[in-house]
């Protein structure tokens, strides 16, 4: 993709973005409207508009931001609309908090980072992934060894394999 000119997405790229972001975007919408079916409608509507309007992207790094922002705005529009007479029935937070940029950034990063972790672990062999999962959950090597019923050295081996694989895959994941 040429980084210098705006880029109109092909159908295939659009489908890839959908596959990568759909679930995460539903989760962020749900953080606002606290209703999963409604969240799905919001996200679908954002994708439909993005496709119909052929939104051009200056560069690939803006894509996540665009979709997260669009979903946030649409969710807030809903909460402010007459359809949601009583925001409290939708969300545990008050509208003031939900409208802050820091709430948005915090929740979006949680969801996006978690989704990257899941995608990375999916690329690893089962045992490796399990060791890494426990490691992320702050288990020490000793605790992982006990939990998985293997030796500490095997845990270290699993981790080594994981680092090696993930370094190779980092381009694919968009991790630099």
């Amino acid at each position: 993709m040429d980084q210098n000119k705006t880029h109109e997405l092909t159908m295939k790229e659009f489908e890839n973005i959908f596959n990568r972001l759909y679930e995460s975007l539903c989760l962020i919408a749900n953080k606002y409207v606290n209703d999963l079916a409604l969240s799905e409608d919001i996200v679908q509507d954002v994708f439909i508009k993005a496709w119909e309007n052929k939104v051009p992207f200056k560069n690939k790094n803006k894509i996540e931001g665009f979709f997260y922002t669009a979903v946030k705005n649409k969710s807030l529009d809903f909460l402010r609309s007459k359809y949601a007479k009583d925001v409290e029935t939708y969300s545990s937070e008050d509208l003031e908090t939900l409208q802050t940029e820091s709430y948005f950034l915090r929740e979006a990063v949680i969801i996006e980072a978690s989704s990257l972790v899941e995608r990375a672990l999916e690329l690893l062999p089962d045992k490796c992934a399990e060791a890494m999962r426990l490691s992320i959950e702050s288990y020490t090597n000793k605790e992982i060894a006990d939990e998985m019923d293997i030796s500490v050295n095997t845990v270290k081996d699993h981790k080594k394999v994981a680092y090696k694989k993930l370094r190779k895959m980092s381009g694919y994941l968009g991790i630099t």
Partner: protein
Amino acid sequence: MDNSDKIKPLSEKIVTSLLKDETSIDLDTFNTLTEDDKKHILFSVTNKNKREERLQLKNKLNKQKAWKAIIGSEKQSNTKRKMIYWYSGIAASIILLLSITLLSNKNDELINTAIVAENNIVIGTDKAILTLEDGSEVRLEKGQIYQANNITSNGEEIIYLLARQADHTEARTKEIAYNTLTVPRGGQFQIKLSDGTKVWLNSESQLKYPVVFNGLETRKVELVYGEAYFDVSSSTLHNGTKFKVYNQSQEVEVLGTEFNIKAYKDEANIYTTLVEGKVVVNYQDKKQSLEPNQQLNLNIQNNNINITKIDNTYKEVSWKKGEFNFKNKTLKGIMKTLSRWYDMEVIFENKNAEDKIFTISFQKSFSIEEILSSIKYANSINDYNIKGKTLTIK
């Protein structure tokens, strides 16, 4: 950079640190976040219960259905989509993805009940005939398993073992052996060639290809007739060798990409649609390159070409995903396509109906009567009648 631009770098930074098992994660550069926010983020990403909460929510989502709703709803003219969808549950039920737009004159006559004498028109299925290099034929059918030297089929797809370097060398010294896959009317099939290229074949189509490609020369296959979708294995994996698809009137040259060719014997045009990547179409002595979302239409009588932009290539090639999508097509054209999948003959008793224009989509698993009754319901045909394998439009 505004906040939304920070989502990606911040997430990537956190994940990289987590995966590298770094004890402390330095988020100081992201000063828009308070210390509490940073703690909250790290806790939520790494906490087991939080993770399970997210997974549970994700499991309730229906991604496939969502994609269909997105792609199916494309352009409902300029009428603004109302907020009706807030009342959940309405989310596009895809039982009948039917949006019929009638552009021609309406017929207000009462609808009679269709006469269906003896309906032998059945829905198409996975089937094909494989012709081996010695001329012998193998029938491949849904539910039937076939296995030979380097070929396996589960009845829906035929797979050629990925060729090793040694096979290439051998292929270079020997004459190349060709197999042919023929999909009859009422059939569809998939094939994975020995270089990893995937091809979807539509009803009434024939593909001729080498059992093993000569490792150093251009990979060549022939779409003898019919329609095929190609997902070509990149030339970087094959010593840079190009991939070419021949047929009677043109040749498509590719490096690694996805595209569709429609070249039926009973149609005056060959349609080449590029979904992804880049291809060059050679016809007579001329060359024409295509960009994604472009369709080249070659008239085989006068060799004139015409390039159009396709807004939604998904619809153009949806046949390989089990759907028919027709956009502003004449009933005659639609029936031609349907006659291949349902293996039927269509007679227009009412010639006026031939040129009526429709936008319609439905699953390939629908019976012919389900489709016809919707068309009839839209008042666009008076009636129809099925006898044996013949459909008569009245």
